[in-house]
């Protein structure tokens, strides 16, 4: 009898230690936001202003030590060309690291494609970067707690703890994650956390000559980004995934995904 009791106690103790109760609790992010009212980083992209020069992509890669020659990038610029026949053609050669300098649209294995000027109805550029979602799908699926959200809403990757399983890359609906070719761990845009947390600007926003990119504090009513989000018609990418992005776009339309 004594032995049985001992076993029972051991079992209870062990299960109690190994599976903490918090594992079963899905925390409401709204509650969390309310708990930290002072700072929440947000980003504003004005697609009308973007000219597709790609300075942001280059600056980002240099600032964050992503090798220029590696075909992955933390931020990129897409080109959208719409034709009179109702077709939408998109391209993004090498993330627009060298900007858009040709009328030829890069369709990868299908080759280059030229759309005659008279066929074009509208055409524009859309910069993309990590949306630093309020309920990030990538963080939810990390099996080891190597990627996480900071108190001010930035999603980071712990390079010393990441096992490189790629689940977060699969889980991100926006394709912003990749394996760093040298560090060999998952990597993504950090909103230049090292710069913004010291009062600086992100490398991409600073490099943009046209003010198409802006970072700001969504909790500060006097912040230009917060104001724009409040007063203008802005949209976010793929709200259907329920990830609640914090990168807002001016001039978004249905074709942008």
């Amino acid at each position: 009898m004594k032995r049985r009791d001992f076993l029972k106690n051991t079992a209870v103790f062990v299960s109690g230690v190994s599976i903490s109760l918090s594992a079963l609790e899905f925390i409401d992010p709204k509650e969390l936001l309310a708990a930290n009212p002072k700072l929440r980083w947000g980003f504003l992209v004005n697609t009308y202003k973007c000219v597709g020069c790609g300075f942001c992509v280059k600056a980002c890669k240099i600032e964050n030590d992503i090798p220029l020659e590696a075909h992955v990038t933390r931020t990129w610029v897409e080109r959208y060309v719409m034709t009179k026949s109702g077709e939408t053609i998109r391209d993004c050669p090498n993330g627009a690291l060298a900007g858009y300098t040709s009328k030829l649209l890069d369709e990868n294995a299908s080759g280059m494609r030229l759309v005659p000027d008279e066929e074009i109805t509208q055409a524009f550029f859309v910069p993309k970067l990590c949306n630093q979602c309020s309920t990030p799908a990538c963080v939810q699926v990390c099996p080891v707690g190597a990627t996480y959200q900071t108190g001010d809403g930035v999603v980071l990757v712990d390079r010393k703890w990441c096992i490189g399983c790629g689940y977060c890359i699969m889980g991100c609906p926006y394709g912003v994650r990749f394996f760093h070719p040298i560090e060999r761990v998952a990597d993504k845009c950090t909103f230049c956390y090292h710069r913004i947390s010291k009062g600086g600007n992100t490398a991409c926003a600073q490099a943009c000559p046209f003010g198409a990119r802006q970072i700001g504090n969504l909790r500060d009513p006097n912040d230009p980004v917060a104001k724009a989000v409040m007063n203008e018609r802005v949209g976010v990418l793929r709200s259907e995934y329920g990830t609640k992005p914090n990168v807002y776009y001016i001039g978004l339309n249905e074709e942008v995904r």
Partner: protein
Amino acid sequence: MVEQVAQMVVHGEAWTIKDLFVLPNEYVYWSIQIVMYPYMTGLVAGAFVLSSLYHVFNVEKLKEIARYALVFSFALLPVAMMPLMLHLQQPLRGIHVMMTPHFTSAISAFGIVFMTYACIVGAEIWFVYRKFFVESLLRLEAKSERSGFESLLLLIYRVIALGARDLSHKAIEADHKAVKLLAGIGIPVACFLHGYAGFIFGSVKANALWMTPLMPVIFICSAVVSGIALCIISYAIFMEIRKWAARRGKSFLLPDAVAHGEHAVDVDHLRSVQSHEVTMTAKYLLIFMTLAITLELLDIIFRGYTAVKSWDILRDVIYEHDFVKIFIMQYGIGNLLPFVILLLPGLTVRRAVLASLLVLFGVFMMRWNVVIGGQAFSLTFDGFMHYHLPIIPHDIETFKEGLLGALMVITTPFVIFYFLNMIIPAFMEDRDTH
């Protein structure tokens, strides 16, 4: 400063060909090893379920294959982990899954479910074979002169017997009870082990092809199917080898005879057992196959009927790009053909093995079409990615995640099984067990 044009191959680039509009960071990140992973886990779970059919539900007809299936399931266990380790970018940190599990992730369950499952299978084997352990132990101890190999064997038996040498009727009865209990617990755990492998895919909301609640169930059914099929094939082949080896006296092919003496093997008896077990098991294969195919077809029909936004690109992938892989290789060769072969009257061992081989291929193609097919299109629904399996490796990456890495994963369980068979003879017949 001019941009460098030198190449630096990032993970996934070596085997991905992009077509039309694909985001710059999109590659086929989950490649052949992630196809192997649910496949191998499925084999483990399926083999275990087969053995449990006998132990729990007393399906007497499966008696001989059940014991074999149990040991083979144990040999497959470490291999289920192998593809994951080969796939990780930081394999040495794999232990983090056990150290800081983040339970909102399906993968984090792996460490715990897998360990639980391993313990259950290990314990079940211990109870099934305890009598044999003790008998062998006593036999070896009684020997006045022991070879080096026999001494090693004795040492192993001493350790794994855990000092429990009681062979009284009562003790043996207790063993049987424990086996039944463990096999009973084992079935849900095996289903969970594999169901959660399905959950890993089914819960990725970013992937239009993967996200369906049916995924775990489909995975469980096809797991049982592939597990049973592999047991039929390997059982028939091993028995064939044993018959051949027993006739010719090639005892190195009979690991249990190496360890325990020639008397363990009898040719005529082997033949009748083989044919009976294989044809019986084939019946169970049919039942689970029907279930698996029904669910898979339901999934495709449902997607086509509801036709939400992603259907346009999924239709392109399913009916055009992957048509041969899905409808010819998976459903035609892998499901329909073996179905007909198994249903034709007068089933022979040879035909059952052929059908099982096709089934194994079919389930492999199903895993392939899910894992690779799910990455065959861009997140923007506007482009495609074609996967090219690296055949000749030119660096460690293309070895690990190429044909050779996959073959390594496939062959390992048989190597393990060979050595395991010396200690735990899977083909041992024991008339008074149960």
